[in-house]
């Protein structure tokens, strides 16, 4: 693409005009113009991203907060919950997305129909979905216990014990976000040149070998990016957990964001709330910088 010097064709009638063209501006006036057009963005960034982070980091320097947090069994439990939730939900989801995208790649009426309805969980806002699942799991009136009873498995208090509640959160996460990531990986699959598959077929490669030697190596990069991105997003999840369990039973199912909310608004300890995020910040920032390096 012509830009910079390349477009400043010399001579003739147009020479005066060309030097005024955007393509021929000096780097300095380009920077001035560019910054002027980016100004609203920069201001938002400084006011609502940098400043809150600065606030968080300065609060985080208070050592007393950590003594409180690390001595609170609920905090320790929350860290475990968050690691399980993020680790299991994201990895299972992306692995399923990898498989499903292969299934949806083939063109056909059934797969077209499926990819159409498959978008629904993604399109529906998170609240209705989570409320539906919450009532579904209600021990007295939910449909899940009706099914479970009819299958001869008896009834359960799904959301009343820690690990089934976390299991419910993980399943909901997969239900809600699997479609989005499947579409992303599907787009990556469509980017693989068909000649590679043809060549593999000629060489007599089976389904597994094609995946092992063609799809997988070509998808590995994007798969890694998706994993990291999804992990960072999920690390900050608030809405799903707050509305599904609200930390119940007995504050045993909190994740970082809901615990911070509890400290700040239920207990009135804003510095503890900020501290919860501050303790997760180093890992999160590390992930973010790896991602920025990879995506750019």
């Amino acid at each position: 693409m012509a830009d910079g010097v390349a477009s400043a064709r010399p001579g003739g009638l147009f020479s005066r005009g060309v030097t005024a063209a955007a393509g021929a501006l000096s780097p300095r006036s380009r920077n001035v113009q560019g910054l002027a057009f980016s100004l609203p963005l920069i201001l938002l960034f400084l006011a609502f991203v940098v400043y809150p982070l600065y606030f968080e980091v300065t609060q985080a320097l208070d050592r007393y907060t950590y003594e409180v947090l690390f001595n609170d069994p609920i905090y320790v439990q929350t860290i475990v919950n968050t690691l399980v939730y993020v680790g299991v939900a994201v990895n299972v989801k992306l692995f399923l997305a990898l498989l499903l995208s292969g299934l949806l790649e083939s063109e056909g009426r059934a797969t077209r129909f499926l990819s159409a309805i498959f978008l629904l969980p993604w399109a529906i806002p998170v609240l209705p979905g989570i409320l539906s699942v919450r009532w579904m799991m209600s021990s007295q009136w939910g449909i899940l216990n009706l099914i479970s009873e009819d299958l001869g498995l008896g009834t359960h208090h799904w959301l009343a014990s820690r690990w089934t509640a976390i299991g419910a959160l993980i399943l909901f996460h997969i239900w809600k976000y699997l479609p989005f990531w499947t579409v992303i990986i599907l787009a990556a699959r469509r980017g693989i040149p068909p000649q590679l598959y043809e060549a593999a077929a000629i060489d007599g490669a089976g389904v597994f070998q094609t995946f092992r030697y063609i799809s997988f190596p070509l998808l590995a990069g994007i798969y890694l990016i998706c994993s990291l991105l999804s992990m960072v997003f999920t690390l900050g999840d608030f809405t799903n957990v707050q509305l599904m369990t609200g930390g119940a039973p007995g504050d045993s199912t909190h994740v970082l964001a809901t615990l911070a909310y509890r400290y700040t608004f239920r207990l009135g300890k804003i510095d503890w709330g900020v501290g919860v995020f501050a303790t997760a910040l180093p890992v999160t920032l590390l992930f973010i910088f790896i991602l920025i390096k990879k995506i750019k």
Partner: protein
Amino acid sequence: MLALVAGWTLFPIYYMVSLAITPWSDLFRPVYFVTHPTLDNFKFVLFQESPFVKYFWRWLANSLLVSSAVMVAVLAVAAMGSYALGRIRFGLGRLVSGMTLFTYIIPASFLSIPFFKIMGDYDLLDTYWALIFAMTTFAAPYALWVLWDYAKTIPAEIDESAAIDGAGPLSIFFRIYLPLVTPTLIAVGTYAFFFAWNEYLYAVLLLQGESMITLPVGMGNFLTSDDAPWNLLMALSVIYSIPPVIFYYIFRRYLTHGLVSGAVQGT
């Protein structure tokens, strides 16, 4: 296999719609198929005939107001930013694009408590400004990336020939760039609208008064009561879900574009 995926996908939605058409008398008797389907719940919501939904139209209006304002603000910020990055292509552009990427990736909840504190300091709590600022900040990066992706495909000669005719950057932006990106602007604007429409965390933090809150916060408040009318809540859920579902189906081509698919092509 396909049937299994379809069943898994549709079940919670089926259940939501089932509850929405379940009469009060049947709510506490779980069944696979609704025996006495009724549209009364929708009537109760639309005519605000229950204390739980007595502000329904007000909540809807609040949601529409905030979402529209966010849409306008995001369009302005992202159109300008994408013009700067995609057309002016300045040396410091890398810094600006890194900034937007950072904003896109960092979980918004990590910034929520300081944000709440700052809004309190400026006396902006329980105003729509606070929510609009937050949503604009977090929706702008993605909008910008989608626009930028498109801006890169417009030949540079178009700007150059306009500049030869004596057009300055502002008139190139308004007269050439904006008309060219209009279809993408529509997609991105709708994205921003529903980004705000769906938001729960910042809305629940920043808005308090019962007549100030948006639809999702109103729905979340049902849960604070033990005898919440779940069939009403599900009718409300259906109403609340329809606009974004229509949007996602119309614009799904655009929505899978942008950040991650940009990375697909890059690797």
